[in-house]
């Protein structure tokens, strides 16, 4: 009885798989499972939302280069591979579900005191984005200046004393490259 149920379940899952997921050797997501575009607007008012072309980026990089092991691909970093060696995709794939948007708030910092916590140095959301994006953009000659990806808002101009808030004798340069 038990095995029968299992077989039925597997068959059912396979059926779903063939319909919704592009069939592949392993239970691994690929780019076609993912959204074509993602609006990133969770943070700061200094810059407007960023329309992230997910589809275009998936042509440049494999899923695991941004999503670690969560899409079912094997991680490259040997340090991660010590624990994450399964091929199963995770329920949680989107960045913000693991990377805290408010990384330095009191409550979150308190959780770091748990001596059993392994990932105690996990970057917050803003850090995770930029560390990953900028690193790769440097290698692939993608944009690295702030304003090449972000449009500055009026609040941003005020904060940076630039644009219409520039000091009288100031000179403004747009974005920063190195």
């Amino acid at each position, binding site marked *: 009885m038990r095995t029968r149920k299992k077989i039925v379940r597997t068959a059912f899952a396979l059926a779903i798989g063939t319909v919704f997921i592009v069939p592949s050797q392993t239970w691994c997501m690929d780019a076609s499972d993912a959204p074509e575009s993602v609006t990133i607007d969770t943070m700061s008012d200094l810059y407007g939302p960023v329309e992230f072309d997910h589809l275009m980026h998936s042509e440049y990089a494999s899923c695991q280069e941004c999503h670690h092991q969560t899409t079912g691909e094997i991680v490259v970093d040997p340090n991660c591979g010590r624990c994450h060696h399964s091929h199963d995709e995770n329920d949680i794939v989107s960045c913000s579900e693991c990377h805290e948007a408010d990384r*330095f708030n009191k409550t979150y910092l308190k959780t770091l005191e748990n001596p059993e916590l392994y990932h105690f140095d996990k970057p917050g959301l803003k850090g995770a*984005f930029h560390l990953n994006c900028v690193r790769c953009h440097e290698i692939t000659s993608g944009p690295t200046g702030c304003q090449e990806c972000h449009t500055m808002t009026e609040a941003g101009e005020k904060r940076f004393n630039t644009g219409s808030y520039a000091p009288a004798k100031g000179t403004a340069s747009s974005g920063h490259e190195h």
Partner: protein
Amino acid sequence: MKQLLNRRNFLKGGLAATASAAVLKNKKTEAHSFEGYPDGMGVLVDLTRCVGCRSCEAACNKEQGLPEPAKPFDDFSVFDEMHHGQKRRTDETAYTIVNRYDVPEIDHPLFRKIQCNHCEEPACLTSCFVNAYTKTPEGAVIYNPKVCVGCRTCMIACPFYIPTFKYSSAFKPRIMKCIFCYDTRLKDGKPPACVEACPQEALTFGKRTDVLKMGKQRIQQKAGKYVDHIYGEHEVGGTAWMYISDVPFDKVGFDTHVPKEPILNSVKEFLGIVPMVLTIWPGLFVGFHLLATRKDKVKEMKEAEDRNNNDEKEGQA
């Protein structure tokens, strides 16, 4: 020449002399060693992450209500500025500064943020004879302008040249320096404005003991990426702001010769045992006098040296 210009050592010598005289008088002294606050907060600065965007500078300027900068914060020509042969430094208009370093072995520029390091045993604090400075349990070294007499000993004592003086009024002396956003943020458990603004999480805020642990883990896990040293773990007796880097620290402007123990340790011992106003003032004033006269001496010597150099040049010609 470098030796000659080291004002701090000079004054320290003066203070230590007074201190040892007092110690002699009081025979045996017990050094009351302050271990720092165990739950104090800190920041780990990861130089490999900083991209020199100056978001931290902009955030600090607004948070601390500092004056409008000469150039916009998204103007990166400031990295090429030199002031008296030195890169930019913190001053009364900027509590934090980011400087660029071009290290030949590395194919991209490196950036380093400067601000008060919030020493565990601050030299500014121990050297201040009216106790204008406080190290709070949260880890900040803050300053009380109401009691400051404007003597500027702290400016000389600080191993990182951080406190600066606001000259706007002769009667209201005011030292200006980074206060770890104590009033507006830290005391409520919030991260400093600069940390919050950093897009690269080059600044990691947390309990000092925790961020220290993170630094050690990063060095260990990314084998060969970092120099195996956390600047500020032991320097000057430990600082709340600490640094990790992928190039030797002296290549990015750090003073690697600062002692591994608190500055002015001897003075502190001394302060613990004698009513300081009675004993330290004469010493200080002698120090000031010497400082004042020494300046002339330095000038004289410099002129003499220049003359020598000129003579040499002429000799060669």
